[in-house]
């Protein structure tokens, strides 16, 4: 028993080290890498947030939503429209964007959480597409497929380095909050639901309500990612709401490993940087991405981090004599 606790404490210390290194790297990045790679880094952070919020539903709760891009887009659009059409203050628009995403998730989620498995996935896909079509076709209100331009951050954030720090700050805070949620009693209940939903129900847990709460939280953080994105390149467009975009956090999470908190982050960083690098000399990116996914699915079940963890666990098991 004590050996186990010592093991856990050791792994915590190791993890703490990693975290410190990563955050330090994030802080000094703008002074070390070029402006272009800083942009990629910012993009990776935003998409990581997207993937993390997705994984709240997938890794923790065990459901596969395929319509998250709608909330991403709603966050961005909500903010963009308030900022440009109604001249609302940046910070208010930012928060409102998140609110809009969460509100729509509440309305949509009520129906989605009553389903499981593939039906849940398809219904989220259908709702996602419905929201996309509405935004795309309502061009008088949303600008249609022209999108909305002129989404400028406040003056002190206009500088790319400043905005990068803003993204980093929001990301770290959000990741921390999500971490706490996943490792709270609420989060553990979600995991229990994933393992065995019937049993959890017999324990008196209202499954649908918990799932709805998780759905809304996930949508809120996804909307936050969208709201971070809009001022990044100063515009939003309906194409960010298509179901193809919903597949991106899915791929990133599977690649990095759905079972670990940092999995989606690793997967997103890998994909974002490799994508940006490869676009420099080929436009056959999809086949590379597709092949990569297949390779990971076959050779690294549990993703990259899952694979590493399993290797380490096996090694530890070998090193430890069996406890009688």
């Amino acid at each position, binding site marked *: 028993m004590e050996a186990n606790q010592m093991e856990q404490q050791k792994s915590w210390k190791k993890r703490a080290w990693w975290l410190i290194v990563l955050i330090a790297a994030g802080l000094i990045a703008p002074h070390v890498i070029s402006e272009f790679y800083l942009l990629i880094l910012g993009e990776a952070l935003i998409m990581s947030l997207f993937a993390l919020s997705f994984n709240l539903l997938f890794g923790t709760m065990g459901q*596969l939503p395929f319509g998250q891009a709608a909330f991403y887009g709603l966050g961005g659009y909500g903010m963009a429209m308030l900022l440009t059409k109604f001249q609302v203050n940046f910070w208010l628009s930012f928060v409102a964007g998140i609110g809009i995403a969460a509100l729509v998730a509440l309305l949509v989620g009520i*129906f989605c959480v009553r389903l499981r498995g593939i039906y849940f996935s398809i*219904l989220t896909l259908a709702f996602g*597409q*419905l929201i996309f079509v509405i935004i795309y076709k309502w061009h008088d209100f949303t600008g249609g497929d022209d999108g909305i331009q002129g989404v400028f951050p406040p003056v002190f954030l206009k500088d790319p380095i400043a905005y990068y720090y803003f993204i980093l700050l929001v990301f770290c805070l959000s990741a921390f909050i999500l971490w706490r949620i996943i490792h709270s009693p609420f989060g553990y209940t979600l995991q229990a639901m994933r393992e065995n939903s019937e049993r959890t129900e017999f324990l008196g847990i209202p499954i649908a309500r918990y799932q709805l709460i998780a759905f809304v939280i996930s949508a809120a953080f996804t909307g936050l990612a969208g709201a971070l994105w809009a001022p990044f390149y100063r515009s939003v467009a309906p194409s960010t709401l298509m179901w193809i975009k919903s597949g991106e956090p899915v791929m990133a999470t599977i690649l990095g490993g759905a079972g670990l908190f940092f999995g989606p982050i690793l997967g997103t960083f890998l994909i974002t940087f490799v994508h940006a690098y490869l676009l420099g000399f080929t436009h056959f990116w*999809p*086949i590379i991405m*597709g092949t990569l996914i297949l390779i990971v*699915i076959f050779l690294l079940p549990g993703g990259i981090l899952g694979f590493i963890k399993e290797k380490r666990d096996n090694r530890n098991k070998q090193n430890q004599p069996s406890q009688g």
Partner: protein
Amino acid sequence: MSFDVLFNQFLSGIARGALLFLVASGLSLTFGVLRVLNFAHGSLYMLGAFLSYSIWKWLLIPVVGFYVATLLTAFIMAGIGLLIEYFILRRLYARGWPEQLLATYALILIITDIVKWFWGGEFLSIPRPKPFTGAVFLFGFPFPSYNFFIILLGLALVVFLWWLVYKTRLGDIIRAAAHDRDMVSALGIPIPWLFTWIFALGAMIAGLSGAVTAPYGAIALGMDIEIIIECFAVVVIGGMGSLPGTLLGALIVGQVYSFGIMYKPELALAFIFMVMAIVLIIRPWGIFGRPER
């Protein structure tokens, strides 16, 4: 609204429904037995269309050329389906359905680029084959004969699949496997090969419908994404894994789109998704589906 106008829209809805049924039936078949929702079904459809164009161009036999090309395409696509199932899907049955779903999603990406690589980005067209070049007259209205050909093919497929599933021993095995694959396996039926065969059949149907669509409209990149969403709507509404359901779903989607266009063209697409969502909310397994899983 006069009768002839309504009748015409109804007919065009039937033609669209027939086309949708041709494509979606393969998806439904695969899901019914293998329990895999093949995201890449639309990509196989697109690949079939491009392949049929190249074969047709290569053969250059007047009149019969198109039909021969369609048949050859169907067989090639069956072979490709076989390879996909054997090398990719088979290893994933033991894993969860999310991995299977993702593998088919990855296939979309791979097949799109394969098409891009071999055929470039050009849109292509095959002229309609004789004798389906003109129009027949129904109630004094012209109705393109090729649309008739598609409807006939749809009917033929319905008959073939019905015969296969309900009148052959293989069909008994398929239905049993759809119900309880472990039991069927315990009875000594080689389930892996059955699955391979079914997936190949599904791919064959996808390729066949792609080849048939080629003279109907244009062959272009993006036709995979365009069709797969409508296919999902069809199988969701009709019932995933149910062939009569797919037929009904296809007809419904065809009519909703056709009449939606007359009254509110911008919202026709939204209607489809709304119906899809409503069905999933009220009766998730579709009109003819079975509540299991």
